């Protein structure tokens, strides 16, 4: 198929940037979206132009690096997938596809379609960990009884790959689905109780500091999240913070 691509081009963090139109032809419907981008970049390199910068690593939906806003949706029109898992069969011959970087003040553009998501790292560092005895007599994790239900829910929350699609799709650029998942994966387990109070307070404080917006429960994040993280995790985080504020203020 033949396509018109409208792509955000920006030389660097200080550049103003603009949308630029490109044509690609003979794209197979079996290609992945990123393979289509590779075709475009090969074309650009061959004609002496600067290729389009975009993030990617595993290309199998597990690393969370790929991050394109395609035709007005994070990770494009398909559901439960990352950009690298999006197939060109979702599009038709002659389509115009708009490709933009994640947009949020807390995710500044580094170049073209690549944004800086280190805000997520800083939120994680603020409390997304547990303390483990590593003195040589580390306890086997299986020796702590955990209900099947809690284990399942914690596992579901831990499926978050930190891609940032939730922020990108939210009309408020809120990071609460991500932070909700990261708080929940520990809040549900006994190992997470030791730091529970400080964890939620510090992670939420860092989230606010980074300049993410405030959740208004539109649910856009849950729909666009490639890993099916649910709003339930935001409700849990809100409860955890309320509880933490009562215990320690």
């Amino acid at each position: 198929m033949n396509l018109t691509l409208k792509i955000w081009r920006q030389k660097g963090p200080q550049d103003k940037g603009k949308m630029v139109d490109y044509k690609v032809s003979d794209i197979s419907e079996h290609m992945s979206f990123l393979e289509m981008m590779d075709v475009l970049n090969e074309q650009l390199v061959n004609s002496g132009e600067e290729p389009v910068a975009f993030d990617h690593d595993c290309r199998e939906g597990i690393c969370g690096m790929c991050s394109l806003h395609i035709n007005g949706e994070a990770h494009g029109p398909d559901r439960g997938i990352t950009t690298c898992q999006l197939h060109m069969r979702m599009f038709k011959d002659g389509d115009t596809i708009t490709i933009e970087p994640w947009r949020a003040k807390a995710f500044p553009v580094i170049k073209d379609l690549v944004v800086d998501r280190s805000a997520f790292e800083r939120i994680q560092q603020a409390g997304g960990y547990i303390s483990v005895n590593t003195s040589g007599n580390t306890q086997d994790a299986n020796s702590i009884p955990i209900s099947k239900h809690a284990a399942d829910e914690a596992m579901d929350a831990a499926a978050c790959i930190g891609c940032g699609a939730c922020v990108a799709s939210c009309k408020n650029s809120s990071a609460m689905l991500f932070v909700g998942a990261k708080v929940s994966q520990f809040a549900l387990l006994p190992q997470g109780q030791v730091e529970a109070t400080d964890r939620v307070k510090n992670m939420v404080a860092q989230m606010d500091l980074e300049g993410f917006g405030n959740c208004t429960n539109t649910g856009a994040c849950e729909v666009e999240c490639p890993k099916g993280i649910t709003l339930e995790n935001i409700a849990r985080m809100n409860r955890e913070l309320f509880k933490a504020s009562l215990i320690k203020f």
Partner: protein
Amino acid sequence: MSGFFNSSIGRKYAMAFSAFFLIIFLVIHLAVNITSVFSEDVFNDLSHFMGTNPLIQFGLQPILIFGVVFHFVMGFVLEAKNKSARNIKYARNNGAANSTWMSRNMIYSGLVILAFIVLHFIDFWIPELNTKYVQGDMSGLLADGEGFRYFEELQHKFVNPLRVGAYVIAFILLALHLLHGFTSAFQSVGATMGRQKAMKNIGKAYSILIPLGFIVVALFHHFNH
């Protein structure tokens, strides 16, 4: 707790609590209004009680005004903050693909409700204050002294089709506001955990029935006076 209410989530709680307050207020308000459809006397008695009871007038009324003002001021503040969290807009954004119109336009449905509240103040509240506290007539009686004035005043307000039209439109917007807002408030305080479906259904029922009740009262008096 002050740290809590300065956090993004604390503000969500504050917003939700002001909304819960308004949700309860609407039920009470409708419960009084709806009696006017069934019994002139009951409506008059209730209105007189609500309008002259000191606990309600000087206890609950100021809280209500605070609640309303807090809610829309906080609404504006959060909207402005959230807007600024995305400094460059998408060239193409398909909001309809992942969220409802209601959830994306709370500020606009809210603004229509606010306009209605202003109209409502001019229509009912200021004349009430004038009669009761400026002219000092706390009797609640008609000018000729033949019974209470409330029911007649109510009927009189719903003669003008333009006012009835504005009233109906405002309540449709209130329904849209609540169709997102009701469940949203419960989600904000973490009360939807494990019962999201049930909360959605209760929210739907409330958001349609309450505004519909107000509309029925308005139309009833428009066509029966």
